């Protein structure tokens, strides 16, 4: 493909983004998501039972750094890369390539080099503190890990926020005794991760299938539409349930499964757009000039048809998060890893209402979904009038 001296899309994409965020609702949504993202990235540094630094008779050590898992490191590396790329201001292809390389390299390196100790005893720091074995210690802002069940305090179970004066649980504790706030922060990763990855997978499948259906019509279209109809006729939740119940509920599996069940919506959009675009004069002209198929599909049609798909994707991320929460709520979600839905599940049990389990995780889900919906709405409003604008 021909290289360009200037970026493509610089006019259109920039002005659409500007329009979207000129609405205050979209900005609020964006700030919230950014906050959640930051929490997700820096989770191990914000809520951790392992102290940052501590000095014992054996010297100064940093248990927190020692106990970082590969995933933590990869995420932070990617974050730094994104910041650097933002300031370098290169074009889209460069950015994507750079990110992918960094991802692959860091994954390999982290898994090879970072090996946190297998056995983790969270209680030992508090015990050491009680036994005055620590000279000084610097703790994380929320000194509880997501899986720290506070065994040293006995069977704690569910407690209201700030119930106990010996330990500060701002949001209370949940069924197994772990701190709710810490679990919520660590659950940010899962929420965002599932949202993006699942939607990404669904978009990929949807765009490819939808594009093929829209461009080629005929048999391809007929078969494709049958497939879409089948997937749409099954209530998504039910299909999800079936998948998860039979295949198990690991995190990555869930992402893939949600992606596999929500692609029909995107396929429909892309197909509709491509059907419209095929009749567009500039596409006809591209065909008349003899441009290769891949250029027509990806350079001429896709950038012009992607707009409604992006709007759908914004709402799709929100619904992916909702799906995961629903599955967890029904008892089919992630078991050990913290998730907002799972905590919500514990709110109403044996006819008691534990309000802090409903408000905080439920509120987190609500605000995140709301934020995505706000951005999606603004994006849709920004795209529509632009399309109708005539010189």
């Amino acid at each position, binding site marked *: 493909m*021909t*290289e*360009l*001296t*200037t970026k*493509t*899309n610089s*006019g*259109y994409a920039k002005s659409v983004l500007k329009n979207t965020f000129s609405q205050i609702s979209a900005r609020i949504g964006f700030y919230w998501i950014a906050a959640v993202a930051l929490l997700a990235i820096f989770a191990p540094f914000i809520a951790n039972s392992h102290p940052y630094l501590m000095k014992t008779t054996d010297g100064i050590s940093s248990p927190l750094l020692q106990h970082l898992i590969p995933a933590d490191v990869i995420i932070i590396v990617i974050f730094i890369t994104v910041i650097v790329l933002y300031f370098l201001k290169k074009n889209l292809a460069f950015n994507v390539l750079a990110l992918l390389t960094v991802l692959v390299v860091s994954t390999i390196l982290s898994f090879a080099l970072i090996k946190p100790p297998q056995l983790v005893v969270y209680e030992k720091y508090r015990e050491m503190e009680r036994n005055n074995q620590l000279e000084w210690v610097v703790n994380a802002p929320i000194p509880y890990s997501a899986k720290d069940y506070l065994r040293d305090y006995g069977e704690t179970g569910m407690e209201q926020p700030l119930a106990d004066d010996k330990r500060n649980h701002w949001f209370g504790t949940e069924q197994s005794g772990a701190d709710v706030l810490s679990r919520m922060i660590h659950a940010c990763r899962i929420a965002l991760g599932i949202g993006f990855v699942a939607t990404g997978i669904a978009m990929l499948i949807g765009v490819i299938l939808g594009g093929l259906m829209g461009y080629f019509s005929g048999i391809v279209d007929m078969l494709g539409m049958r497939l879409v109809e089948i997937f749409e006729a099954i209530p998504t939740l039910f299909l999800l349930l079936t998948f998860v119940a039979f295949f198990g509920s690991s995190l990555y599996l869930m992402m893939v499964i949600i992606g596999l069940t929500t692609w029909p919506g995107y396929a429909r959009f892309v197909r509709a757009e491509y059907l419209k675009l095929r009749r*567009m*004069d*500039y596409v*006809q*002209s*591209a*065909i*008349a*000039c*003899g*441009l*290769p198929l891949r*250029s027509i599909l990806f*350079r*001429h049609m896709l*950038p*012009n048809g992607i707009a409604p798909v992006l709007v759908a994707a914004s709402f799709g991320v929100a619904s992916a998060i909702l799906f995961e929460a629903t599955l967890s709520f029904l008892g089919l979600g992630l078991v050990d890893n913290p998730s907002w839905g799972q905590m919500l599940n514990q709110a109403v049990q044996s006819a008691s209402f534990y309000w802090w389990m409903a408000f905080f995780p439920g509120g987190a889900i609500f605000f995140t979904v709301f934020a995505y919906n706000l951005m999606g709405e603004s994006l849709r409003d920004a795209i529509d009038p632009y399309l109708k*604008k*005539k*010189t």
Partner: protein
Amino acid sequence: MAEPLIQVDQLRTYLRSGDKTVKAVDDVSFTIQRGETYCLVGESGSGKSITALSIMRLLPKDITSHPSGAITFQKNAEPGGAIELLETDQEDMRTIRGSRIAMIFQEPMNSLNPVYTIGEQIMEALQIHWPDMSDEQARQKTIAALADVQIPNPEQRVDEYPHRLSGGQRQRVMIAMAMACEPDLLIADEPTTALDVTVQAEILRLMQELQQRKSMSILFITHDFGVVAQIGHKLGVMKHGEIVEQGAVQDVLSNPQHDYTKQLLAALPENLKQNNRAAMLAAFRVKQKANKEEADLINIENLKVYFPIKKGVFRHTVDNVKAVDDVSLSIRQGQILALVGESGCGKTTLGRALLRLEEPTSGVFSYAGNVLSSLSQKQILPYRRDLQFIFQDPMSSLNPRLNIATTLIEPMAVHGIGKNKDERIALAQDVMQQVQLDPEYIWRYPHEFSGGQRQRIGIARSLVLNPKFIVCDEVTSALDVSVQAEILDILLKLRADRELTLLFITHNISVVEYISDEIAVMYKGKIVERGDTDQVTSSPQHEYTQKLLSAVPRLHH
């Protein structure tokens, strides 16, 4: 002299859009007498429609303001029966709208409510203004109104839904609806622009007849001077919200005073012909004599392009839409052949088939001796350099996401023109100059250009591969008259400089007479007449050609 039916004095209509105010109508004054047709002419954006909507008070209240002006309307014939339309409240306006002043619009396709029958919609107009009228009476009046506008079988048609009617019939229904209450003033906003020329002729004839019978006044908005010449009594030329010249139609057309009017009239293809054509034609004829033995560049034999109609659960083909039905045609090199016909006759399909944008069902066509109709898409590729296409709609012919440079360079790269990118850019800039655009514009995006400029870029794109044959599909139909003149001249110059052969598809006869050497008339997929343009237009042989030519509204009768 009797009081004018309607008198517009210093009308100003300002529209608010965001934080900007657009002076859509800026100090417009005119009068219309009873039984008179006043034509308001101008290019797009001149404010003619807004003037009409201001009279009807149909503009949205929250963005409209009238800083000055008065519209005095004689509601009834007694003295003192005049009312001031800008001061009338909405309730009273509603009693006037549809009964004393009626309006018809441009797009008959969308102007009727699709979920009600045409009878119901006409009866509604009657029963709003005469609430005591019974349903039976209203129905009878409706059928009479339909008969008046010459809809056949009005007793059955009255219960039909709009989507079953053709464009021309829908416009007749609109006229019937507007005239049902026998208004004093009919405002017609480009009512025939979207219709075929033969249909337009019938509608215009109908309106004149109705006007005479009911001594109705008409405010006719149009951009077509030919129409004005045919039906107008008085004429006003609008530009940027002002009337720059007005007067009796004959006076203004034969002796325009204002520069703008002169410019507009000069740009009309009929008048262009007088000025430029003689010289060009002479030059061309000289060249032709030298190349007398030139072979046909394009040869079409028995071409058929059928589109199957699939019905039923199993999608089996019940019938075919015969878009191109056994067409044989040949085009000589260096010639401009105009392919003329009304909408749906198949001319666009024929043009597209030549570039294999549509697949021929049967028949053969060849280019410079090479048969193209049976080659696969891959085999056609080398020929795509020589055959190009220019599209009608400037708004959709350029990819909005790519800058002009990319649009122009990509085809060059694919066909191996130019050794490297810089060379290709230089070539692109060269082509831009040939279409009279600043070469630096190639770094811009399509939305930054006007319609006329985009059409020139479309021409530039077709030239980039150095083609020998270009199909021009209604390339000026979406443009204003003055812009159209420029584009036509560019095409003529390019044809001379590069020795191009053009297939010029259009429905506009005056453009054909200006630009083409030969003409082929198409009707329902078949070529009904073919020959030298001057000859065919002066003495048409085929019945359809005669009908077509006589329907064209001319400036000079």
